[in-house]
């Protein structure tokens, strides 16, 4: 018996392009709707039902989601597992906190310095008096640190688990520095931002907090759009190629070092912005909150839970894990850590592609077959619509 193979017709490019354009505008519309919901509807609802405190939590978690986008870029797309992104988060957070500490005293030496007998403001604090400088420093300092660290690491072809260990070691170096230097940055006590004036009111004032909430939403949308643009073009394909077979990339004539330095720097800038927005909404930044190893590992967990290399998954995972933590630790303070461990384990073992990854793959197929649709074609049409294979499928069902 001869097997007839049905080859798929090659779809005209114009049709493909028209469909891609439709999906693009659909996504733009969805993002705008989500942003408007977050900006206008959700805070109003939460305030109306007397859950105003949740708005602040949501704002902080949205800030964390910006950092998660960076983790997804570097880990999900490029395959570099960084366990030290707390460094960049803290650098951004401290930059803004230093500016606000100075504002609290109208540009004078902050109070805590007198505890350690420091009467003159350390020189590196001076430029943080200026708001424009601070706004640039929030993302530029993490970027420069990432370029320096990344260049040395990637140039020497440090990869895989060695890269992870190295970033974690760097994190501990930063932690010890920030934690130990009372006379420079108040050491383990961290920097307070809540009592400082900003936008003409105190930073802890609801009006200022509403602005920070809105800024978190805006930067999350901008960050998402930027990452989406970056990963959908040729750059995104380069990153995937580096993740899947880096030596092959070299023999194709590319130097992967610069691509990796670039993506490391972008993710550091995102973490810096996240750190600044998180700090002003928390009211304080300390070394143990921002530079602990646990915090940097948690960032990775958010992305793993949501789904690597999906971007949406990074945001979704961050909100899910953090709200789960908040709600569960309010109800059952003793067992939250067990929940977190169970969540991570079950995602790794049952949904290795994360929640969004599952929804896009098996979940989508399941939904289609539940509503009576055909199982979507995953391999060749010639294979899946093969009459023999179809016959086998029909007859092996019962």
């Amino acid at each position, binding site marked *: 018996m001869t097997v007839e193979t049905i080859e798929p017709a090659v779809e005209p490019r114009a049709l493909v392009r028209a469909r891609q354009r439709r999906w693009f505008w659909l996504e733009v519309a969805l993002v705008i709707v989500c942003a408007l919901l977050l900006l206008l509807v959700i805070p109003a609802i939460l305030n109306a039902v007397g859950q105003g405190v949740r708005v602040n939590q949501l704002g902080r978690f949205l800030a964390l989601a910006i950092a998660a986008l960076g983790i997804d870029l570097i880990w999900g797309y490029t395959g570099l597992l960084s366990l030290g992104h707390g460094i960049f988060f803290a650098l951004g957070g401290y930059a803004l906190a230093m500016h606000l500490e100075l504002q609290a005293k109208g540009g004078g030496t902050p109070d805590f310095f007198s505890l350690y007998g420091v009467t003159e403001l350390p020189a590196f604090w001076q430029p943080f008096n200026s708001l424009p400088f601070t706004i640039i420093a929030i993302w530029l300092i993490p970027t420069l640190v990432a370029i320096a660290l990344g260049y040395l690491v990637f140039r020497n072809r440090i990869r895989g688990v060695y890269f992870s260990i190295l970033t974690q070691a760097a994190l501990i170096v930063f932690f010890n520095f920030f934690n130990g230097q009372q006379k420079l940055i108040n050491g383990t006590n961290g920097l307070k931002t809540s009592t400082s004036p900003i936008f003409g009111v105190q930073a802890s004032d609801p009006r200022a907090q509403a602005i920070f909430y809105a800024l978190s939403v805006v930067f999350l949308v901008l960050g998402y759009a930027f990452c989406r643009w970056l990963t959908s*073009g040729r750059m995104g394909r380069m990153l995937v190629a580096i993740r*899947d077979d880096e030596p092959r990339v070299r023999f194709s004539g590319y130097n992967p070092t610069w691509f990796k330095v670039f993506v490391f720097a972008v993710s550091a800038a995102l973490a810096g912005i996240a750190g600044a927005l998180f700090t002003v909404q928390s009211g304080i930044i300390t070394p143990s909150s921002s530079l602990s190893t646990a915090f940097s590992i948690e960032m990775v967990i958010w992305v793993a839970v949501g789904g690597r290399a999906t971007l949406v998954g990074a945001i979704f995972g961050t909100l899910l894990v953090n709200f789960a933590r908040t709600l569960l630790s309010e109800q059952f303070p003793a067992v939250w850590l067990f929940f977190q461990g169970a969540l991570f384990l079950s995602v790794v073992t049952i949904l290795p592609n994360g929640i969004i990854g599952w929804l896009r793959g098996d979940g989508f197929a399941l939904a289609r077959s539940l509503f009576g649709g055909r199982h979507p074609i995953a391999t060749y049409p010639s294979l899946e619509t093969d009459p023999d294979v179809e016959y086998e499928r029909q007859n092996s069902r019962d």
Partner: protein
Amino acid sequence: MSDKILEIEHLTVSFDGFKAISDLNFSLDAGELRVVIGPNGAGKTTFMDVITGKTKPTAGKVHFKGKDILPYREHEIAQMGIGRKFQTPRVYLKLTPRENLELSCVRQKNLWSALRGKASSEERRTVSDLLETIGLTRRADIPAELLSHGEKQRLEIGMLVAQSPDLLLVDEPVAGLTDEETEAVGNLLLQLAETHSIMVIEHDMEFVRQIARKVTVLHQGTVLCEGSMDEVQNDPRVIEVYLGKEDEDH
């Protein structure tokens, strides 16, 4: 001198005292199709590693188009015009054949051109012509991980050509292919040989007979003999180390 595309003199590579290649001399004319054969452990793959910059030799000279290429790294040598196909097909599995070819085809391989992103219409035409040549037009937009082994082999050869190198190094292109596919790859290589210099490493003697004009036999890291297929096959030393054993196996 100038019509030699590749010249290698007194090349020695040793790993912890073990000489994978010892005092090897080799040269390839521009436009030549050469097949390199040799038993396992003869140093064939190490030889390619040296030419492409993956392994640095202990001693010796490697000149490509008259230029010493030993100080350069892999991507620089690739940009100079040496393309390499690996033993097992190495394509980017999560990308489609079209995207695989586009990545190889781009002329400006730096960060900025990757950020600017769009393929020029000329590049798009090159890619679709190549897809036609390697027979993957209908598979152009599915992930490469779904391709069969033979299709991946052809795709990787396509990626090599997309780089438009002057010299193609092809390591066992027909390993694991059916007879039909082997012949298709052979014809593809013969077609490419009209415009490129090619060096093929191969085990499959049927295939070597199909494409070979001149054959080099490596043994224990050095050149045992060189000549046409007939000359090599009748050389008693070659029969002893290589072909003789093959015949016993059959």
